[in-house]
């Protein structure tokens, strides 16, 4: 089973939930953590894995043979990402803008564009005290997160309960990370900002046809509108984590919640059971 942990709004506690879930489950399950927040992976701060394997990730970017180029401008016109400009007798390629779709080389009438691999990041694998650990790291200055995320996802394996930490927002990296999950946990905070971005995240997850449930972190601040929204939309509210100085203090020192406050372990084990029930019920009623 693959459980993605997303949020919409940043800083709501995805990493807290993902790492607590992984550490609570590891005694009864084979657990793998996939940190797909490749622009700023941080599960490693809490889990402290030993990294044993590093694999570079490449994006295919165009190289134009200007000896043979007629400067017809087709490549610049067909590029949906404005990664190529043809000016006078110059072809300018902006590799950071390139999504690696290959349209330029496919449609070049002179066939003078080849796609060359450009390293954009790395996937690191290792182990953290019995948890199999995979994280993607996008090179600073690079903009294309999805190829790195896809490479992390290649290590998915049915033998494991996979906890996949997702970046904030609802853009391409989030969609790529959530795609293929059995369930998406959405971590939010009970504030207007939390709710606004939660609604966007719920719409995204629904579009992908993936069941979701809500975790409210820092419960006690703000108002009750997130809870009201869950009731109205029929989305299960699975866990409340209160605003607590003790939790914040542990977290700020990189100490896992379920180690510093082991009483939380049962809450996360229960959380996984609830998720499993929702997923299996849904699988037996696929029309829903």
């Amino acid at each position: 089973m693959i459980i993605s942990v997303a949020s919409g709004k940043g800083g709501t506690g995805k990493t807290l939930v993902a790492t607590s879930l992984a550490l609570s489950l590891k005694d009864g399950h084979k657990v793998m953590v996939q940190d797909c927040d490749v622009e700023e992976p941080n599960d490693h701060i809490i889990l402290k894995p030993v990294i044993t394997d590093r694999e570079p990730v490449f994006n295919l970017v165009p190289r134009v043979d200007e000896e043979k180029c007629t400067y017809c401008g087709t490549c610049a016109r067909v590029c949906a990402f404005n990664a190529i400009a043809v000016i006078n007798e110059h072809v300018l390629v902006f590799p950071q803008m390139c999504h690696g779709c290959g349209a330029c080389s496919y449609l070049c009438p002179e066939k003078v564009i080849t796609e060359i691999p450009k390293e954009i990041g790395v996937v690191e694998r290792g182990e953290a005290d019995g948890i199999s650990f995979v994280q993607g790291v996008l090179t600073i200055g690079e903009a294309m997160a999805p190829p790195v995320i896809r490479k992390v996802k290649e290590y998915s394996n049915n033998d494991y309960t996979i906890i996949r930490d997702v970046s904030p927002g609802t853009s391409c990296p989030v969609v790529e990370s959530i795609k293929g999950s059995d369930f998406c946990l959405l971590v939010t905070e009970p504030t207007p900002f939390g709710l606004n971005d939660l609604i966007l995240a719920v719409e995204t997850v629904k579009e992908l046809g993936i069941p979701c449930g809500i975790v409210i972190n820092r419960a006690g601040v703000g108002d009750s509108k997130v809870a009201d929204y869950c009731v109205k939309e029929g989305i299960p509210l699975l866990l409340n984590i209160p605003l607590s100085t003790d939790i914040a203090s542990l977290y700020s020192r990189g100490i896992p919640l379920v180690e510093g406050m082991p009483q939380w372990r049962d809450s996360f084990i229960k959380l996984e059971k609830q998720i499993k029930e929702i997923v299996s019920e849904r699988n037996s009623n696929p029309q829903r």
Partner: protein
Amino acid sequence: MKIAISSAGKTLDAQVDPRFGRCAYFIVVDTETMQFEAVDNANAAAGGGAGIATAQMIAGKGVEAVLSGNCGPNAYEVLSKADIKVISGVSGVIKDVVENYRNGKYEASNKPNVAGHFGQGLK
């Protein structure tokens, strides 16, 4: 000689748009005759690469200089390959800017004056 000025409106009385790649319009004006054309900037809401696409569009207008509030690195690179002078830090009313240009009050920039994505945060 024609120049292009990023503009918030379609007339010579409009204000300069501080953004290059994501400006609303360009006023392309002949500095001798003051005849001008307002060009819609179709790249104002581009997902990415607005500066690159806008620079390429302006290069097709046969101007000798582009005047704007700001110009980022990618747009600058395209404009300089097109041998178009870039004058950044420009503000005020379009017709005053043209007058200042005619009187040689501006100096061309030899580098971009803002980092990439600068214009995304401006409205």
